[in-house]
């Protein structure tokens, strides 16, 4: 059941209505039923994996909590905790590895062996990637780690914990919530709050706008070009690559936005997953703004435990590379994703190495670091590097990605530009709609960038403060744009596959 499906439009109001109708005591149970039903709509048998991950991490939390309170010697407690957390990680990562990476690993081994002239026929496992597995396993593991680090108490109520792992708004594509945030909130079932519901619904509408009006339209052009990269040149490839940057941003952010909106309707606050990533002034800054829930997860549970930047420069760079390698691999079992991750790691290292020189250059040239033009230049340069990395992320193979980069340098034949542009899958009307949608997104982003960090700077909130006529004219325009995008492609959310 996709957020952009008719089924969800029926499911969600029923889930919300009954949630508020039921007495507080059973609201969480109802949400748990809804969450499991939501997941089972995709494939009922894979609920077993969700339950398994939930049970393992729940028990590991209880064991660590028990060890802590058992009065045993500190060393023994640490030992128990270490073993428990290791067991939880092995079981969860084992599940993830089997369902997501086993065939990739086998194929890679076969290829490596073949390089050495050893012919190996690796078995092919008949597995389907369960939707959202990377998200809920990371969420469950974050709980294990938080209990391990004594940052939270273990959750005693199994059903509440199961709801934390399976909370339907963010179950299949994040944000990857932390127990410190969501689990705490679940202790007190949400109350009906008019402002929350209104704001949540408007946020959801904004999410649908991003997905259907912008992302799905970009997808048509991007798919046309990227599925036949050798057939296109110059500006066509550049346009497709820029639109892919827009597509993946709007696609992924839309899911998070709908999730945040849906949770808010129920009375819960989910973490922000994107904060104007294409306004980043460096790659480091980009990762503070892009998929915040994953990058902070990797920072807290991988980069810092590896030593972070505390063990010298070489070790720091090594840790960065490992973190980004894992980030790439998390996104998918393919070398294109790994390459994308590694490329971002290299970007960060180069940025770090060059930083003293760039600082010195600024000092010598007496350019004010707060100069607006410099700020814009930084944004543009960062975007170019990010977009080059996206080429590897989107291309069907690394070879295709290099073809895109090489052929992007061809200059356009201006005489045929008008004909060629419409041959990319989007007609004039749809291109116009995409441009309007992008403009709205840009205005919204500028408002957010120039305002404070409160919800007041959100475009939807700004609209809700206008007078009746303007407000409804804008709501209806938005609704009509969504309606006119409904049969564009009906694409799944990109991050579902991760």
């Amino acid at each position, binding site marked *: 059941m996709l957020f952009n499906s*008719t089924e969800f439009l029926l499911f969600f109001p029923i889930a919300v209505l009954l949630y508020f109708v039921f007495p507080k005591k059973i609201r969480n149970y109802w949400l748990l039923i809804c969450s499991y039903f939501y997941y089972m709509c995709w494939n009922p048998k894979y609920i077993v994996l969700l339950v398994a991950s939930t049970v393992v991490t729940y028990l590991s939390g209880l064991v660590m909590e028990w060890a802590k309170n058992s009065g045993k010697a500190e060393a023994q407690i640490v030992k128990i905790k270490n073993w428990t957390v290791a067991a939880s990680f092995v079981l969860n990562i084992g599940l993830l590895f089997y369902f997501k990476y086993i065939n990739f690993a086998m194929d890679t081994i076969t290829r490596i062996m073949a390089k050495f002239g050893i012919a190996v026929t690796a078995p092919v496992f008949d597995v389907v990637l369960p939707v959202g597995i990377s998200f809920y396993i990371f969420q469950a593991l974050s709980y294990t780690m938080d209990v391990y680090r004594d940052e939270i108490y273990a959750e005693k109520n199994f059903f509440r914990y199961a709801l934390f792992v399976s909370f339907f708004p963010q179950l299949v594509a994040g944000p990857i919530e932390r127990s410190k945030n969501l689990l705490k909130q679940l202790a007190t079932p949400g*109350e009906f709050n008019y402002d929350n519901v209104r704001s949540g*619904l408007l946020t959801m509408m904004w999410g649908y706008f991003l997905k259907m009006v912008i992302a799905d339209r970009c997808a048509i052009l991007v798919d046309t070009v990227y599925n036949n990269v050798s057939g296109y040149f110059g500006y066509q490839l550049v346009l497709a690559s820029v639109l892919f940057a827009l597509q993946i941003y709007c696609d992924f952010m839309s899911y998070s936005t709908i999730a945040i909106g849906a949770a808010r309707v129920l009375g819960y606050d989910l973490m922000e997953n994107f904060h104007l990533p294409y306004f980043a002034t460096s790659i480091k800054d980009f990762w503070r703004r892009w998929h915040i829930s994953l990058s902070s997860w990797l920072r807290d549970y991988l980069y810092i435990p590896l030593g972070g930047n505390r063990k010298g420069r070489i070790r720091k760079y090594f840790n960065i590379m490992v973190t980004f390698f894992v980030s790439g691999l998390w996104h998918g079992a393919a070398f294109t994703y790994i390459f994308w991750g590694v490329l971002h790691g290299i970007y960060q290292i180069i940025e770090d190495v060059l930083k003293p020189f760039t600082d010195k250059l600024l000092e010598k040239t007496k350019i004010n670091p707060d100069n607006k033009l410099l700020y814009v230049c930084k944004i543009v340069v960062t975007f170019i590097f990010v977009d080059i990395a996206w080429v590897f992320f989107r291309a069907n193979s690394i070879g295709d990605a290099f073809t895109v980069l090489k052929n992007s340098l061809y200059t356009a034949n201006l005489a045929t530009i008008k004909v060629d542009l419409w041959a990319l899958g989007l007609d004039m009307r749809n291109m116009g709609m995409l441009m309007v949608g992008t403009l709205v997104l840009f205005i919204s982003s500028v408002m957010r960038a120039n305002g404070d960090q409160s919800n007041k700077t959100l475009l939807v909130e700004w609209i809700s403060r206008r007078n009746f006529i303007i407000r409804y004219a804008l709501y*209806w325009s938005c*609704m009509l744009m969504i*309606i*006119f995008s409904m*049969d*564009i492609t009906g694409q799944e959310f990109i991050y579902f596959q991760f």
Partner: protein
Amino acid sequence: MGFRSTLINTGKLILKCTLVTAPLWGFPIFCANNILAYAGSDYVGAIWINDLTQTKQSKYYSTLVIGDSTANSAYLPEVLSDDTVNLALAGSSPVDGYYTLENYLNNNKAPKDIFVSYMDYHLDDDSFTWNVSNYIHKFTLEQNEEIYKAIEKYSDLSVAALTTDNDYETEVKKYLYYSPQIYSYSVFQAIDGKRYKSNTAAYEDVNIRLGRYCQITNNQYEPEGIMGYSTFNVSPLQEYYYKRILNLCEKKHIAVHMVKLPLSTDAGFIDDYETEVTDYYDELLEDYDDADFYWFHTTYEHEFFSDAYHMNNHGSFRFSRELLEQYPDVFEDSVDDYSRARMLAIDADIAGENYMGELTKRIDNKPFTLIFLDSTGNLSDFYYMSVGYNDKDVQWLDVEDNNSYALWFLSGDGAAFPDNIQVTTSDNSVAVTIGEEVTYLTPADGPGIRFCVIDNKNKSIVCTRQSVWDVEKGFRDIY
């Protein structure tokens, strides 16, 4: 927060949600009531047929035609009779044909005769117009269920995967409730209002032609070799619906005429094809008393076709006249009964005609008047060479004062020049006044003949044409 304020807030919220989402629920209402405003031009014929079958008609149609696009283009109701309507649907097979008939009979009195014609490829293949028919709401939910069960029983369920990723029922419901996922593309494309204008005109044209909408052209087919018809096969699914058509007709006492349409001369029947066809229909119809099969074995020259299967206007005209001869009892009311509506359809055919010979065939024995403005003095040449029309002569009407042109007229049914048409000559034009409408005929561009065709029944000018005279080639085709 008290219960009362929660209740008030909930009510407020529901009201606001309803208001904000007004376009979402307003969309199906718009779609249900304005199909011509957004549907693609390909749908117009099917929409007209659907409207006719799903509503009670004030006029009684004694003869129906069901079939595919080859049938739609071949049968000319205006030639056959005033009580004939062509309900053949492009891309359809007996599956659709059955429901066209069922819908019609659910709302209207049963006709006396039905002609059924399908091209071989629509019988051999299990596909039918699922998308188009659901788009225009031809099939009810129950009918869709029947189709699904029939597919399950007689065919492969992959045929039911006419739908995208969803199951059959979900997809049917999307059509049934005008889901934006199905209709929003069309509405978006029609936002400038041009579709409404062109669809309304096209709908009116189908209305005038009593259901005929396919291949209305005089383009000529250029064959690339012998087609070679070697085998004839009817799939179990299509045969099931063939039998349902026959059973329904038997129940309603309707005579069924299964007609295999003429093909072009490049068809080439080889092996046992002809035997297979006749054997199949003999076996199919043996249990039905009032059903027959007729095969127009005669092949037509390729100039009577617009492509390998579809007749053009000339072919359809020829076929319909031959059908009249083949089934005189069915069309006994045809001759000399030209209603105004029927005349409009003939007008439409004439308006698209480029050959004088064909044009005059269409006006033969019908209340038409042709006024010729001859600036060559060679009208008789033009007339006899290009028309070969010997039954009635053109008659003298008038001459311009300076003898720069002469006026003649020809009456389709041999009647005198109609009283209600006034003709006034002047230096460079002739004013033809019918009622309050005045049309000016100017001499042809160069030596030649300008003429206009007048529909006496509808009191309107159908078209004005000219034929220019060339020293070497004589009179050229009309344009």
